[in-house]
């Protein structure tokens, strides 16, 4: 095991700075902050599991994957596919425009397209796995007990959450409401849509009886839902 790092610095390459700027330019603050925190938590959790940046994984690729991973929920990135894949496509385009080689683009594409696929993403390679770790920690607290004491408070003070879990669910559900093909059944965006836009239940027999005006009342033995 390696010791915790407590670092909050970010990769400083021209590409990394451009990616961060791009995300902050086109995203609501809660999305951009979440993306940035995902990288910091991912790097910290990787360290807690004994993985060193640029030894066991490519640090810039993890940063790019985390930083760009939610572009699909922005107006800029919203298209006709599920938000993970729209985001992967916009990110790939951004990287190609910056001259990134195709093999590196492909890793980022996979990390982003699979970032909500629990049980799959961690098997696609180190960068995809660490991206998934970091995002999972920031959004639902996975493995947060492995973060150094006080680290999350420090990060949240600099990049506040703005009720991330709810704010993100609203954006994704609204996209699916506007275009149902963005939320296939049994997927994460499909679930959020179902949660935020429940199908109105059909009128039940007991509601019909209750509206009849005869004052029929449930009997002691009747179980009403």
């Amino acid at each position: 095991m390696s010791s915790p790092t407590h670092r909050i610095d970010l990769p400083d390459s021209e590409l990394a700075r451009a990616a961060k700027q791009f995300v902050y330019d086109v995203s609501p603050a809660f999305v951009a902050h979440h993306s940035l925190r995902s990288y910091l938590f991912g790097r910290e959790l990787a360290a807690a599991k004994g993985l060193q940046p640029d030894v066991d994984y490519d640090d810039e690729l993890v940063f790019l994957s985390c930083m760009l991973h939610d572009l699909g929920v922005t107006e800029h990135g919203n298209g006709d596919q599920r938000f993970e894949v729209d985001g992967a496509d916009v990110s790939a385009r951004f990287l190609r425009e910056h001259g990134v080689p195709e093999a590196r683009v492909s890793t980022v594409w996979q990390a982003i397209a699979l970032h909500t696929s629990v049980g799959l993403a961690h098997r696609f390679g180190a960068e995809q796995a660490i991206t998934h770790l970091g995002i999972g920690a920031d959004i639902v607290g996975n493995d947060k007990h492995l973060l150094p004491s006080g680290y999350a408070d420090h990060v949240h003070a600099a990049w506040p959450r703005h009720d991330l879990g709810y704010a993100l669910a609203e954006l994704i559900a609204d996209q699916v409401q506007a275009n149902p093909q963005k939320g296939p059944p049994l997927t994460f965006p499909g679930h959020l849509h179902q949660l935020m836009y429940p199908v109105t239940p059909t009128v039940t027999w007991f509601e019909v009886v209750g509206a009849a005006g005869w004052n029929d009342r449930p009997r002691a033995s009747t179980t009403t839902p």
Partner: protein
Amino acid sequence: MRTIPELPTDPIASAALELARSTESESVLNHSVRSYLWAVLLAEHENVTSDADYDPVLLFAATVMHDLGVGSRASGQQRFEIEGADLAAELLVAHAVSNNDVDRVWEAIAIHTSPGIAERRGLLAYLTREGIGIDFGRQADIVRNQQQAIHAHYPRLAMVRSLVDAIVEHAARSEAAAPRYSIPGELLHERRQHGVTRMEQAAAQSPWGD
């Protein structure tokens, strides 16, 4: 006129078929072979059989082995898609298939239940997912001239119910095998909550019935 495509007969294809036959129920095996046949018909329909990355042996490997994860060789410690992909990769490596081709088959199996993603990962992953989809009644028009003969050779044997049973049984073995918002996780949840799953309800509306 040829009614149904032939199965490849080279040693890799034979070994893949034998592994599926010896570790899966007859219903799941037939589903897997039909998925290959539908995938070939779809490839012909879309005129992609002369594409450089179209390879009938790899397509056979991916489709015929795509449900090894619900067979008797899978342990239930990871999602069935991953356990199936690993078992398939092991067989291909033993037959000296190149790393790149092993990776393509592994990925096609690992993401075969991931709508909107599998279709974007190249021809093999696309045809694998869509071939399986036709066996659930999607795009049934494309195979209307061959479907009777194919179903006569490889009967359905209550495919959807048998497959859901096998997925649920596998998913119940560990938390890691059944994460939320995945096919195995949601099928397990629906079975426990309601007895019947949406996948089985949808099958009742499909052109194949089950």
